């Protein structure tokens, strides 16, 4: 019992140190970290902050972005989304779940030649508005739809 507790303390302590080291930028940008991960964007709690963390100043609503998903998701642990953009020069597509602990779920960079559409599956803690945030020709656009969740996917 005591042994277990020590192990837990030790491992969580280690994680905290690792986290600190990472946030202090102590890790050299090796191959594993080369691509980068927008830590600030993934810590945001609403879309306005996400746009800021991605280097934008605001986002305009657009009818040229389509979110295809179930309107009611029975299992919040696996909710499929297909996001497509008809905006010219679409550079990136991000998926945001408003009521998740952190709104940003995933962000995709679309190089020229790749269709501006991705399909993936995300977790939703509860019924929430889901937004697709698209960066096209340097500007941000979004569209939002509500997805009802019968059983949350973030609980223990």
């Amino acid at each position, binding site marked *: 019992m005591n042994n277990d507790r020590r192990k837990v303390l030790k491992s969580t302590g280690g994680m905290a140190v690792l986290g600190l080291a990472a946030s202090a930028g102590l890790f050299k940008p090796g191959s594993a970290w080369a691509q980068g991960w927008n830590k600030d964007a993934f810590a945001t709690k609403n879309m306005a902050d996400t746009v800021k963390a991605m280097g934008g100043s605001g986002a305009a609503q657009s009818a040229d972005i389509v979110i295809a998903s179930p309107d009611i998701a029975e299992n919040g642990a696996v909710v499929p989304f297909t996001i497509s953009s008809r905006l010219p020069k679409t550079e990136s597509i991000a998926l945001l779940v408003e009521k998740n602990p952190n709104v940003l779920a*995933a962000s995709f960079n679309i190089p020229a030649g*790749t269709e501006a559409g991705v399909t993936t599956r995300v977790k939703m803690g509860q019924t929430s508005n889901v937004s697709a945030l698209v960066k096209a020709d340097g500007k941000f656009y979004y569209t939002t739809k509500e997805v009802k969740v019968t059983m949350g996917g973030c609980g223990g």
Partner: protein
Amino acid sequence: MADPMKIRATMAGDKVEVKVLMSHEMETGQRKDSKGAAIPAHFIQNVTATHNGKVVLSAEWGPAVSKNPFLSFKFAGGKPGDKVSITWTDNKGEKRTDEATVS
């Protein structure tokens, strides 16, 4: 070491449709174990897809992406026999690369 990805790359008209199923726990860091201790986050942060060495999709993911993530997209300029390679890297620095042939 993580299990291999399942990758399908097929021609859909003049484009290549890529479907990837990765094997990863995608632990959020929000959950607690039976003793009440927080389970540390463990999730894929970066995904890169390349076709003949050229990046055709790159992604940054948070822990909200579902366990055993699925990803699908289409790109132009591919033909049957080409190689499509996918690499992911998680927040612990683990990584895995798998390859598929376009059919």
